[in-house]
């Protein structure tokens, strides 16, 4: 036994090249299988572990109208809900960029503190590890901030990672430019919102289930159903609550208004009464005073008239009274003078004396009259003056009163008006009450988190590759091991014969070979497992780490593949070695010792064309016959090389598919730089947006309407975008609609649609046929296909306004604007009613970023495939040479130059390699299609084409390996001793 074991090691030493090649093939196969499998498994496990540890919610419920304690209570009551945790979040702007403020929760969506401490004060917060630094001060801006938060800024005291945000792209925000850039967590007390903004649910059914696997989805399903049941109920309750609250409010306002009107009326009426009183007083006074003045005036006038009559009697009137008095006085003086001339007592004297007395009496009377008249006139004047003053006073008093009345009337009108207005308002409010939209609940689960889902999608791409590769490797391993062992056994049949003849049992001899194979197999296995577990997952995860904020990879050992790999390796090794040995060992020792006749040479197919056959050299003849003689080897080589080339092609192809797609789609087809999605549909670009565009040098913007529909094929449903440009001609500048038939530009016509190529392919429709699409309400629309356009990412239908209105029977309005140029980051787009700005360069960048990452994986695959190709070629060449040692030695003796011999030996392998390459290219193409089919997600249809350059690279790579192998073999060939030709056949 010891002898046999010794012999095994001797064998290994003697055939170290072959031994190593088996070992390496096994190591490669296993490392690729384990590496790829455990990479994806490990990545999923790492993420799942991260989610579980930090209690990532299973469901997040949000509502258009907030959530209440009642909602929480009812959610707590449903089956499968372990906890329902109400919480808050609000989007705010931090220097123009949108960030989300969350409340710190203990039981759900725990944050991972990377640096700093948890906040103690209200104005302290935890912030995104990747965007903020400790001690940063973040100022929140939001028009509605006060109804959500009691603070408007916070100080960063801790830096965190959150399972909610595992990706650079964090989703959509309702403010800013629509892109959520980062996040912070504040203490829950800081939120003062009267309702909850969200409720997180943790399910007890999913606790032990791995996210990303079907078992999780399955476990979540019952809860989802329950939630869907409770959703309309809670929505209605909330609706009624809001309605009641609103109508109460209206009643309150109505009462208040009525009260106010009443008060106003009372005041007004009071002031009117006052006015009435005043008026009466004034009127009375006027009457009284007028009578007084009038009667006094009449008395005075009477007195005056009487006086004037008296005066008249005396021959005087008002004007001549002074003259009459002077005349009378003159007369008296004259008479007195006369009297003096007249004797006293004469009649005449007496007469005159009497006259004088009379005159004197008259004079007295006249004087009295004059005085009286003056007095009366004075009195009259005073009276008249007073009367006038009084009249003026009354007039002004009356004016005031009239004013008062006017004011009163105005007041009345005002109240009427106010009344009407109030009524109107109340009516309006009541009408609005009817317009209050029913609250809508959104049931979001983990899948609605963009980071969560894209992580899986990216893994699927790797998984697709990992599904196919190992099969090849294992196939190649089986073939190579069996082939090599065959050769060894064949070479050593004499030795086997000797051993048998010397009494060793068949099993003992078999044991030798089994041991040989097992040693190489086990070393290869160990090596493969080490590389597969320790290196490959890290390389692949490294690609993900650059895009995802996930913790360090947890390398896992999945029991199934681990044991499968070991078992499979052992079984393959054992089966191959036992069957091969048994084939020889069943012979008698004598037969083994005898020279095994070489396989019979055969005429090959080509010899049926003697003209062709006689022209080729004998070396070629040998080569051609050899190729067809050893069918097993043809299959081996062709398969081995084909497999490796196929892997190379697939690897390069994946790169091509993804990389060229972004170029074709975003450079050749989509020519606009940016798309602005509007909050509301419009007919024309609003003037404020036009101004914004002008300021940002965005020229020639075009309104389009973009709506999402779905179409169904093979029981699968895909999203499709319906695009209706406002101006079809201008649209041609932005989207290059190019016919797949003749590469010519096509325009959208009135009577049908242009659809994207892959849509047409999936639905198998031709120009002139029609396609069926459904909207979100599952309504069916049928569109005629006018033309098919080149397109690579997403499905599109392009139609014009007229066709739109014909199909959908409604007026079109537009919800997006496309244009070239970019709006300054700092501008708050939500102020312009722009929901989000999508920049083409961002899409391309994200795209290329992953392609770049994927490239690393592809390089890994290409390197592994290359190594495999190399080892396979090396192994085959070794076998080929060892089989031909004698022939080659003979050629040498016959005088063939080394070069001729090299070419001769290598030509055969080269021809087989070329066949292998051809098969590999074909096979690789299909492998690539298969991988792309698996890797394809809902929104990207990968190009199934591989660039000719990639094919050329694959061919060259395989040929280069072949050449390297040849160089190595040349040395071996040179070493072959001519003397061998003289030796007897073994």
């Amino acid at each position: 036994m010891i002898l046999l074991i010794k012999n095994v090691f001797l064998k290994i030493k003697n055939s170290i090249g072959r031994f190593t090649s088996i070992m390496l093939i096994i190591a490669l196969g296993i490392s690729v299988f384990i590496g790829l499998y455990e990479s994806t498994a490990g990545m999923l496990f790492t993420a799942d572990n991260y989610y579980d540890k930090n209690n990532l919610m299973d469901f997040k419920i949000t509502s258009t109208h907030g959530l209440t304690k009642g909602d929480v209570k009812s959610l707590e009551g449903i089956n499968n809900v372990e906890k329902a945790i109400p919480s808050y979040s609000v989007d705010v702007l931090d220097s123009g960029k949108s960030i989300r403020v969350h409340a710190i929760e203990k039981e759900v969506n725990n944050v991972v503190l990377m640096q700093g401490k948890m906040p103690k004060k209200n104005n302290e917060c935890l912030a995104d590890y990747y965007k903020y630094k400790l001690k940063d001060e973040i100022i929140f801006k939001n028009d509605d901030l006060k109804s959500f938060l009691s603070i408007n800024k916070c100080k960063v005291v801790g830096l965190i990672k959150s399972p909610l945000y595992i990706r650079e792209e964090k989703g959509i925000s309702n403010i800013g430019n629509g892109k959520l850039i980062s996040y912070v967590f504040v203490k829950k007390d800081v939120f003062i919102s009267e309702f909850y903004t969200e409720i997180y649910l943790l399910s007890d059914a999913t606790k032990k289930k791995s996210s990303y696997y079907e078992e999780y989805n399955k476990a979540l399903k019952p809860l989802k159903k329950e939630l869907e049941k409770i959703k309309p109920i809670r929505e209605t309750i909330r609706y009624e609550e809001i309605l009641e609250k609103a109508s109460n409010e209206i009643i309150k306002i109505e009462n208040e208004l009525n009260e106010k009107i009443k008060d106003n009326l009372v005041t007004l009426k009071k002031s009117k009464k006052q006015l009435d009183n005043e008026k009466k007083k004034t009127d009375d006074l006027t009457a009284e005073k007028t009578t007084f003045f009038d009667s006094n005036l009449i008395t005075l006038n009477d007195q005056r008239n009487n006086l004037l009559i008296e005066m008249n009697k005396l021959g005087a009137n008002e004007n001549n009274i002074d003259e009459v008095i002077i005349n009378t006085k003159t007369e008296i003086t004259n008479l007195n003078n006369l009297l003096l001339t007249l004797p006293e007592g004469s009649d005449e004297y007496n007469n005159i004396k009497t006259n004088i007395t009379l005159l004197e009496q008259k004079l007295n009377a006249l004087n009295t009259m004059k005085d009286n008249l003056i007095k009366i006139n004075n009195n009259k004047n005073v009276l008249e003056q007073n009367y006038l003053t009084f009249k003026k006073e009354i007039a002004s008093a009356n004016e005031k009163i009239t004013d008062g009345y006017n004011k009163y009337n105005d007041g009345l009108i005002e109240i009427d008006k106010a009344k009407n207005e109030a009524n109107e308002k109340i009516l309006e409010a009541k009408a609005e009450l009817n317009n209050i939209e029913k609250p809508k609940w959104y049931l979001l689960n983990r899948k609605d988190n963009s980071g969560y889902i894209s992580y899986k999608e990216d893994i699927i791409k790797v998984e697709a590759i990992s599904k196919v590769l190992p099969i090849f490797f294992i196939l190649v391993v089986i073939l190579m091991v069996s082939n090599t062992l065959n050769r060894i056994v064949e070479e050593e049949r004499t030795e086997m014969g000797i051993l048998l003849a010397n009494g060793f049992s068949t099993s003992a001899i078999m044991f030798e070979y089994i041991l040989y194979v097992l040693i190489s197999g086990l070393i290869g296995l160990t090596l493969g497992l080490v590389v597969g577990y320790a290196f490959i997952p890290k390389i692949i995860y490294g690609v993900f780490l650059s895009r995802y904020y996930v913790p360090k990879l947890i390398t896992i050992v999945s029991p199934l593949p681990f044991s499968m790999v070991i078992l499979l390796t052992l079984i393959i090794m054992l089966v191959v070695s036992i069957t091969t040995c048994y084939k020889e060992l069943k012979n008698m020792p004598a037969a083994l010792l005898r020279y095994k006749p070489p396989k019979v040479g055969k005429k090959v197919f080509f010899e049926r064309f003697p003209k062709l056959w006689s022209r080729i050299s004998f070396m070629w003849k040998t080569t051609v016959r050899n190729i067809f003689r050893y069918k097993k080897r043809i299959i081996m080589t062709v398969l081995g090389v084909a497999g490796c080339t196929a892997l190379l092609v697939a690897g390069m192809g994946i790169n091509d598919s993804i990389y060229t797609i972004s170029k074709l789609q975003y450079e050749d087809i989509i020519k606009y730089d940016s798309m602005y999605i509007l909050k509301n549909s419009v007919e024309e670009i609003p003037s404020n947006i036009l101004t914004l565009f002008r300021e940002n040098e965005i020229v020639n913007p075009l309104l389009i309407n973009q709506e999402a529909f779905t179409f169904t094929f093979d029981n699968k449903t895909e999203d499709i975008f319906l695009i209706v440009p406002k101006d079809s001609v201008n649209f041609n500048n932005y989207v290059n609609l190019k016919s797949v038939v003749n590469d010519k530009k096509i325009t959208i016509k009135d009577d049908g649609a242009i659809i994207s190529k892959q849509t047409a392919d999936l639905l198998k429709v031709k120009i002139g046929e029609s396609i069926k699409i459904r909207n979100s309400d599952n309504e069916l629309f049928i569109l005629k296909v006018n033309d098919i356009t080149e397109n690579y990412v997403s499905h599109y239908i392009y139609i014009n306004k007229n066709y739109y209105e014909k199909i959908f029977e409604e007026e079109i309005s537009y919800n997006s604007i496309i244009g070239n140029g970019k709006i300054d980051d700092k501008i708050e787009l939500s102020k312009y009613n722009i929901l989000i700005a999508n920049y083409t360069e961002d899409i391309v960048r994200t795209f290329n970023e992953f392609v770049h990452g994927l490239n690393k994986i592809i390089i890994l695959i290409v390197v592994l495939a290359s190594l495999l190709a190399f080892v396979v070629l090396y192994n085959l060449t070794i076998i080929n040479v060892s089989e031909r040692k004698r022939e080659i030695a003979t050629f040498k003796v016959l005088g063939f130059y080394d070069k001729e011999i090299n070419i001769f030996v290598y030509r055969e392998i080269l021809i087989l390699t070329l066949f292998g390459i051809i098969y590999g290219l074909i096979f690789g193409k299909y492998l690539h299609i298969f991988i792309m089919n698996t890797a394809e997600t809902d929104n990207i249809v990968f190009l199934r084409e591989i660039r000719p350059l990639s094919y050329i690279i694959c061919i060259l790579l395989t040929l280069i390996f072949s050449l390297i192998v040849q160089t190595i073999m040349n040395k071996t060939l040179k070493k072959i001793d001519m003397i061998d030709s003289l030796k007897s056949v073994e």
Partner: protein
Amino acid sequence: MYIELDKITKKYKMGDIVIPAADKVSFGINEGEFAVVLGPSGAGKTTILNILGGMDTCDSGKIMVDGKDITKYNKKELTKYRRNDIGFVFQFYNLVPNLTSLENIELASQLCKDSLPAKEVLKSVGLKDRMNNFPSQLSGGEQQRVAIARALAKKPKLLLCDEPTGALDSKTGQKVLEVLYDTCKEYGMTVIIITHNVSISKIADKVIKMRSGAVEEIIINKRPLKIKEIDW
């Protein structure tokens, strides 16, 4: 002399021991001569054959073939020498299994500029009918005759045969030898046969007896026997 070996010495090192495979071997052969190198195994015959055939080099000494010193040849010149001047007949025939009898001969004849027509040579070894057969379809004797034809077709200056009948039974061996002898005489070929078989030496013009790496005796047969006359 057409071929002249002068004090050819070749030593093999086996660890510390030096084994002299050929020790100052000297002999000459005339053009058209049918010579036999005779000796038991280990006498150094094969060493001489290897050196003479340009397959191996010697440590010292000189070999003149048709006036040229082949011991001075480098590797490439040796290959050329084997290609143009030497014909080999191996003990185990060493035919290319994938070529027919005719093709095996053509393979050799296309190597040199002035060769004999393959079909003619094949006819002269009596295998015209087996022209399109593959080696595995031929008996040992037939295979060896093809091998002889292959060597002759090159019109070599020297035909070297290493135990040409060693793998054959006596009857077949005799027949092969006859063919070899006759055709060589027919084409006027210089032949050296290496054998341990004493009977064969009887038909030779010259017999070089070797023992322990040295020439023991050179016998010139005045009257070589006919092949049919010899006893095996």
